[in-house]
């Protein structure tokens, strides 16, 4: 079908698009948030347990690093299918938007851990040393030095993570996860509705742009150097 400005056509399009956008936003926010709940502590552990840092522990660092690398090696679509039994026992179903969140989190958390690790490694050794010279405990160094000093970089990391989760949710759509990806497959691909396909892409582009701009603006706001 050709794109037109016919109100009836636009109304129908809108009815299709709105719930899909809602589902995508829901999946992205929930998955990103939960991925940070898991990934932020993991990233912190990776950094502080590295040699020469505040709690050096080669065993913890190696084990965590290996687990994270294994999880990151599995393609998301494979991980999603492989996790179906666990998803079913956790969520009650393996189909639908909520069910898609679990594999999204499992796949994103290791990514978050690495992003957080990179951000925290940017904090200068000198500042950490200064805090140690004042008698700061490891917990105080994490909460009062590492996280606040890396704030801008962490915020940019959240933007990057959110955008990569948006990409994953589109894949979740292929197995009935709902959202914009689902719409693009069902209508745009299976039913040859190029107009819907294009519209979905435009909406995704706008969302990705928005997230990135917001991230950049927030990072600039918290930067003082």
């Amino acid at each position, binding site marked *: 079908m050709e794109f037109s400005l016919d109100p009836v056509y636009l109304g129908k399009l809108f009815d299709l698009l709105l719930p899909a956008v809602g589902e995508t936003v829901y999946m992205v926010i929930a998955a990103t948030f939960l991925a940070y709940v898991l990934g932020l502590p993991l990233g912190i552990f990776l950094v502080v347990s590295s040699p020469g840092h505040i709690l050096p522990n080669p065993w913890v660092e190696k084990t965590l690093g290996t687990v994270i690398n294994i999880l990151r090696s599995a393609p998301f679509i494979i991980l999603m299918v492989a996790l179906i039994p666990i998803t079913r026992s956790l969520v009650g179903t393996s189909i639908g938007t909520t069910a898609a969140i679990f594999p999204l989190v499992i796949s994103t958390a290791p990514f978050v851990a690495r992003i957080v690790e990179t951000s925290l490694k940017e904090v*200068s050794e*000198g*500042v950490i*040393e*200064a*805090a*140690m*010279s*004042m*008698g*700061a*405990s490891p917990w*105080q160094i994490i909460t*009062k*030095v590492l996280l*606040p*000093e890396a*704030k801008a970089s962490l915020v940019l990391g959240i933007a990057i993570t959110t955008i990569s989760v948006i990409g994953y949710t589109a894949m979740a759509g292929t197995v009935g996860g709902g959202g914009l990806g689902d719409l693009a497959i069902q209508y745009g691909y299976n039913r040859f509705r190029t107009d819907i396909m294009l519209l979905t892409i435009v909406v995704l582009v706008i969302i990705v742009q928005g997230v990135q701009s917001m991230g950049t603006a927030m990072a600039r706001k*918290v930067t*003082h*150097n």
Partner: protein
Amino acid sequence: MIQIENVSKVYSSRHGQTKALENVSLHIPRGAVYGIIGLSGAGKSTLVRCLNLLEQPTGGRILIAGQDLTKVSGQTLRQARQKIGMIFQHFNLLQSRTVAGNIAFPLEIAGLSKTEITKRVNELLPLVGLAEKANAYPAELSGGQKQRVGIARALALKPDVLLCDEATSALDPQTTLSILNLVREINQTLGLTIVIITHEMKVIKEICTHVAVLHQSQIIETATVEDIFTKPQSTIAREFVASVFPNEMPEELLQAFANEAQSEILRVRFLGEKAARPIISELIRNSEVEINILYGSIDHLRTTLFGSLTLEMKGSSEQRQNAHEYLKSRELEVEVIQRGV
């Protein structure tokens, strides 16, 4: 105040072992401004970092106010560190906090209440001359101002000891002087013991009371600052002294004077009130030698005068003998550079 006993530090790596400190022993008296000078790689930074256990020594003991820091860890060590302030070459301020926030940082760590913190920060800001800059971020400050924040932060918990790790090495000469003056003031008004690590003899000259020369991981000389400048023992110490008082005569000039009979070239160093005495005229009157001033400089050590004169002295051997006795009786440091025939 600080007792360093046979401290060693060996770094082990896959490529073998590197000795950073070998059997270093030092006694730093209460209230002293103790300079530790050495060339790059001598082990100075390792030594100062051992004093608050940022580096764990591989041997020996560190006693601060009677407490052996090498024996404590965890909470006890952290509490001991709160009584040892430290400032750094690159300031190491928190970029995400304002000047006031940076000064508040050690107070937060120590668990003081909000009102106590505000009160202490407001005392410290004027002390380092930054009352106007309380809400500025480090990125908006000059190097000297950043180091002032570092000093205020180090003093926040009223420490007994202040460690300065190349604190002025990243600053221009003018700013260096103002920071050194501030450190001297702090030493005098608060009476805390200060340990200064530096490779610049100028820093030692300006504020130190004592000095230790660290060379190739070992202490090779310790002295009061007056003694190191008037009678340096080791070659390294002499080189350091010459770096601020360059009174070496050019070789050709020395040659020209050396060949004369009944003449010798002396270097006389004097300090404090001795510098104010008319020694040259007394010398001429007493021993009837002829004096020719070849080179001279007068400067100060901390707040006392310090001078160095290179003289050519002519006369019979008896007259010159008398002159030497006179100089000795005045307790002046005399070094014969060249003796004529």
